[in-house]
């Protein structure tokens, strides 16, 4: 990467962040709700991206972890406890469950793991629906309060959007650090070639469980934001289809790419909204768009970009080589 390229990327990054802060200022309530939802789903998808894209384990339970986080937030804040406490509980709970659920990953091959996690998703849904004493069953929990952040109330849509955006920024920074740490490198080594990773002295068992648990915990984090965002939760949003949606977000955005979940969540949350003018056809068009994208580029949107950049780089390199070669040949 050349110096100008680097500055260009930094400038682009600052422009995007500025746009995310400034543009929504005159959005209506619904627009802000959708954008906040994008931020929340990006966090959940980032967790899944760690599990899938970096550690190579397919999980169909991420939606269940969002549900666990959401219920933790709803139940605890209804008791008057602060959201931070719920966040702590959600992280610990999801991390522990993710760790336990990761054990089958060590025993069985990837598609079986998908089914173990699928079973867990459905079990979690049944618990949300049937344990009335805790979750109020199908009636759901309403009037979930929004938190005060350093003395500022976030009841109104705009401050709450900033709260979600800020949380997304914090999670992104933590993730950026994590995948560049020795841990992140170990995750990648694990994905690329488990046997070689083992021979390099990486404890594959521990790192697989770790990736799974951290990814699950991020699902819980997203859940604790989701509950105050909608201010009402019932079991329905956390059924298997949320897990499938999150998986689709990661793949469509580009699994294993840092910015994949951002784009994937944007497509999954915003594209159906943009297609709403087509009325009943919008989810159909969305499904067709996803299929076409996957046929064209199975590595997702960032996969296209990546391919394009690699191609251009090889072209430039071969052009340079050709020039160098012709100079050599014409030299006396």
């Amino acid at each position: 990467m050349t110096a100008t390229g680097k500055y260009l990327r930094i400038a682009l990054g600052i422009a995007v962040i500025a746009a995310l802060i400034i543009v929504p200022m005159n959005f209506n309530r619904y627009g802000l709700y959708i954008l906040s939802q994008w931020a929340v789903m990006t966090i959940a998808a980032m967790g899944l991206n760690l599990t899938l894209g970096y550690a190579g384990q397919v999980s169909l339970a991420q939606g269940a972890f969002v549900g666990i986080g959401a219920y933790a937030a709803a139940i605890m804040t209804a008791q008057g406890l602060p959201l931070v406490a719920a966040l702590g509980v959600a992280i610990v709970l999801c991390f522990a469950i993710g760790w336990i659920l990761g054990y089958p990953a060590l025993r069985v091959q990837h598609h079986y793991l998908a089914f173990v996690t699928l079973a867990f998703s459905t079990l979690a849904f049944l618990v949300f629906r049937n344990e009335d004493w805790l979750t109020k069953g199908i009636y759901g929990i309403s009037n979930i309060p929004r938190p005060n952040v350093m003395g500022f109330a976030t009841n109104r849509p705009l401050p709450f959007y900033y709260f979600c955006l800020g949380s997304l920024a914090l999670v992104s920074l933590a993730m950026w650090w994590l995948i560049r740490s020795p841990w992140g490198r170990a995750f990648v080594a694990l994905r690329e070639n488990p046997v070689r990773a083992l021979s390099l002295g990486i404890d594959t068992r521990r790192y697989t469980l770790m990736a799974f648990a951290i990814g699950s915990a991020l699902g819980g984090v997203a859940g604790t934001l989701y509950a105050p965002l909608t201010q009402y939760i019932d079991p329905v949003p956390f059924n298997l289809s949320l897990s499938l949606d999150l998986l689709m977000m990661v793949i469509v955005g580009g699994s294993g790419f840092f910015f994949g979940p951002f784009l994937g969540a944007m497509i999954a949350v915003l594209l159906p909204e943009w297609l709403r003018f087509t009325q009943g056809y919008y989810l159909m068009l969305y499904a067709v768009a996803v299929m076409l994208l996957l046929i064209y580029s199975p590595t997702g949107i960032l996969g296209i970009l990546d391919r394009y950049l690699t191609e251009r780089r090889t072209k430039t390199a071969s052009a340079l080589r050709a020039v160098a070669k012709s100079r050599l040949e014409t030299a006396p």
Partner: protein
Amino acid sequence: MSNLLDLLVAGLATGAIYALVAVGFTLLWQTSQTINFAQGEFVMLPAFLMLAVMHVGAPFWLAIILGILLSLLLLGLGFKLLLVDPMLRHGVLPLAIATMALAIGMKEAVKQFFSAEASPFPSIVPAGDVSILGRVVSLQSLGVLALAIAVVIGLTALLNRTSIGHQMQATAQNPTVARIIGVPVERMILMTFLINAFLVALASLLITPIYLAKFSSGEVLGQAAFIAAIVGGFNQVRGAIAGGLLIGVVDNLAAAYVSTQYRAAVPLILLIVIILFRPQGLLGRPEERTV
């Protein structure tokens, strides 16, 4: 104890339908590494195709024939040519995701073009009860069970007795070797897609009179078939059949004796236990680990 027989027969009847769906699922996996997350929707659609034909005024038997032909065309040939073939070289996961998108698309299309409400569907088995060993058993359950068993026997005979069946099995076990010994691998793979389309159309015909035709009915069915396929053995046709019957019976017994609320949980717990202790499934061969 008295209604145990009823529960068993009803369980075997739904189990036999799960088995049909699960067999198609394992066939696709074996010959082309396709995990079809839209398999449940594949069962939902043929009933609507048949209803659509009947709306035009055709009699039920013609609707059945046209419905099955349309299923072969759309869910067999169309699915293979338009989605699986372009995606196959990209590996298992993107294809699995694409079938999830396909499931959403199919559900929404039926909801949009047909109806969001559940529609009644005529039964090919007459209503009524018969008396066996002094117990009254519903004719519907018996008919469904008999038809499903006949299809399963026919399919097993096709796979084990005919040369096409042997060629298909060779393709499933090792496409490269099969190609070397002269098996038309491509044609055999297409054949499994057509068989899958036929099986789901038949399952649709058998199950829809019981549960009504609804755009969302594929979710539960697809999941039951996945569980059946894994419990029985992902890489074995007879495993999928056994798994289907087992899940059907366990599901019905759980609803009666455990709790209706956690009825759906019992097969799932069975699934987790089996994956942990016998990941290849009850009747499956262990798959060699490839590095």
